[in-house]
């Protein structure tokens, strides 16, 4: 590796953290679903991609300004989450986790193919009011897009934490995830909880989409790429907890940037997967372990 100047170092660090926050955000979406239902939603990345396209359509075709686009996108996506839950997920409650995993893989394929048919396969650009000249601090130039990603992620995470920890719904969700039958007996509407969890998770995907869209070009395959990395993030962090997902995301975001820099852009993405495999060899339970072995 060549000598890195301090400026480049900080630059890479910030880019890494902002990308990492994105992975963390997407990971947050399916960790939430996993916590509530122990279902694994492999289509989370593709749901995010839909969010990005919806935002793009609202902005370019209907010419809405930024704030309405944000609100509408989140709303539309939350409804989309409800619809998905109602039509595809609810019949699968009580099926083995493997079946749900496969189901969401299939769902991802369908979403990607349909998006490709509707919006085409060429890359689209999405601009925001803060897509302006970067902030220059010495030799470091910081894009506002990146800073917004980091800021939003922090706010969203804190909000989510408070919501799950201190609201009635959060507690109900945890109860439903521990024991569906017992939760139903004490009067928790388990199906409703599952539905709202999906709603919430797709809304988070929408936020992630709104943040990713200005940062990268949008194309149907983006969800899959980001989605897989988000999974890696969640696993590195220790599946099944929110802070782990975020920490994992930031870890791989940084690694990706630095390896990419070292090899002149060639192996950044691959390094993420190598990191995952190494991690699984060394510490398979993730940085923050939550999953315990089955009790007999």
């Amino acid at each position, binding site marked *: 590796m060549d000598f890195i100047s301090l400026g480049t170092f900080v630059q890479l660090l910030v880019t890494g953290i902002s990308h990492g926050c994105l992975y963390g955000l997407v990971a947050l979406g399916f960790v939430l679903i996993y916590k509530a239902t122990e279902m694994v939603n492999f289509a989370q990345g593709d749901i995010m991609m839909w969010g990005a396209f919806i935002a793009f359509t609202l902005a370019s075709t209907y010419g809405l300004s930024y704030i309405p686009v944000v609100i509408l996108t989140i709303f539309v996506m939350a409804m989309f989450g409800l619809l998905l839950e109602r039509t595809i997920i609810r019949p699968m409650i009580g099926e083995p986790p493997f079946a749900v995993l496969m189901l969401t893989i299939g769902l991802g394929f*369908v979403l990607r193919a349909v998006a490709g048919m509707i919006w085409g396969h060429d890359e689209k650009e999405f601009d925001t009011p803060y897509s302006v000249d970067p902030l220059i601090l010495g030799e470091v130039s910081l894009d506002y897009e990146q800073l917004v990603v980091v800021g939003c992620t922090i706010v969203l995470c804190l909000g989510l934490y408070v919501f799950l920890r201190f609201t009635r719904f959060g507690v109900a969700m945890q109860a439903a995830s521990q024991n569906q039958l017992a939760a139903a007996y004490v009067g928790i509407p388990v199906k409703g909880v599952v539905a709202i969890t999906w709603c919430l998770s797709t809304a988070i995907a929408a936020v992630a989409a709104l943040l990713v869209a200005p940062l990268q070009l949008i194309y149907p395959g983006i969800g899959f790429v980001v989605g897989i990395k988000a999974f890696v993030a969640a696993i590195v962090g220790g599946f099944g907890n929110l802070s782990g997902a975020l920490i994992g995301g930031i870890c791989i975001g940084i690694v990706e940037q630095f390896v990419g820099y070292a090899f002149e852009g060639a192996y950044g993405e691959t390094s993420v997967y190598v990191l995952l495999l190494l991690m699984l060899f060394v510490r398979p339970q993730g940085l923050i372990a939550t999953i315990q072995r089955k009790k007999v």
Partner: protein
Amino acid sequence: MRFVLKTNYAQDINLFLHNGQRFWYGLLIAALILAPFFLENFYIGELTYLFIWVIAGAGLMLLIGYTGLVSMGHAAFMAIGAYAHAVLFKLGVPFLPSLLMAALISGFLGAIIGVAALRMTGIYLAVATISFAFIIEKVISAWRPVTGGHRGFIVPEPVMFGVDFGSDLVFYFLCLVIVVVVMLLVMNLLRSPTGRAMVAVRDSEISAQAMGVNLVQTKTLAFTLSAAFTGLAGALYSHKIGMLFPENFTIFLSIKLLMLVVVGGLGSVHGIVFGAMFISILPQVIAIVRDFLPSWLAYRRGLEPLVFGAILLFFLMYEPLGLYGRWVKIRAYFTQFPLYRKSTFKRQKSYLRTERVH
């Protein structure tokens, strides 16, 4: 309905339950031997592809259907088999040994992943195998001196002892023999202690251990065998496609293989064949249906993945036992007519209880 009177323990051990089965399978083999003399070249080629899918499917079924370990990166093992064989063969290794070595190399890499997979289940494993597949794809495209990278790698014509295996007919019979051997190996394995150990691991790891099953050994072995079979299929595949590109072995191929085992019917040997038939016929069906679709839809990119994904959804939601499960139900309907009850095959749902702490 057929009742088999069992008079001897040996009867349960036999591969075929009764003479009727022996007759039908014999007939099938005979038909497959005679088929190429009556079929056009196109169909011989299609059947050969079918055999290759069956071999790959057998590998994946062993892993997913019988050991309960999900791999979403099996395209990587096909790629390893294909490239290993092509490269070795080009270097002058004779044809059949090169096929075997390709299977061994693939199996060896499978073992390594198997070791990594030891403490993983479900989602962990799925993501780990996807990552592995991405890494292999990258290695193939970056290792240009050996694999040719994106410029492709021309697979030499398979010739050994003066026999040209490249001709459609000879290659057909080669694949037929390999398919039969692989299926026999898999079926033998499943009726002996190793196969039972795999199923035990799938159904309850705790209990399997309490019965003396070595988890480490069983999972690693399952991965090794699975990768070896899939690698062998890849080696044969390399000759069928003639020119290898990294793009031949993407995630889409992995999903196709996954679909093979799910649509065929998890945990059944018949399912392998049904699933293989399904994924070889589906593209043809899509091609035919295309002609009837409105033009704005028909030639859009992504029609095939859309149909694949939708069918996967459909099967998981409505027929999780796959085509084989459907076949069993239809058979039961006719043999028990008019006493068939729909609830015979009612699925048990279980409600979630987690052992997590948080």
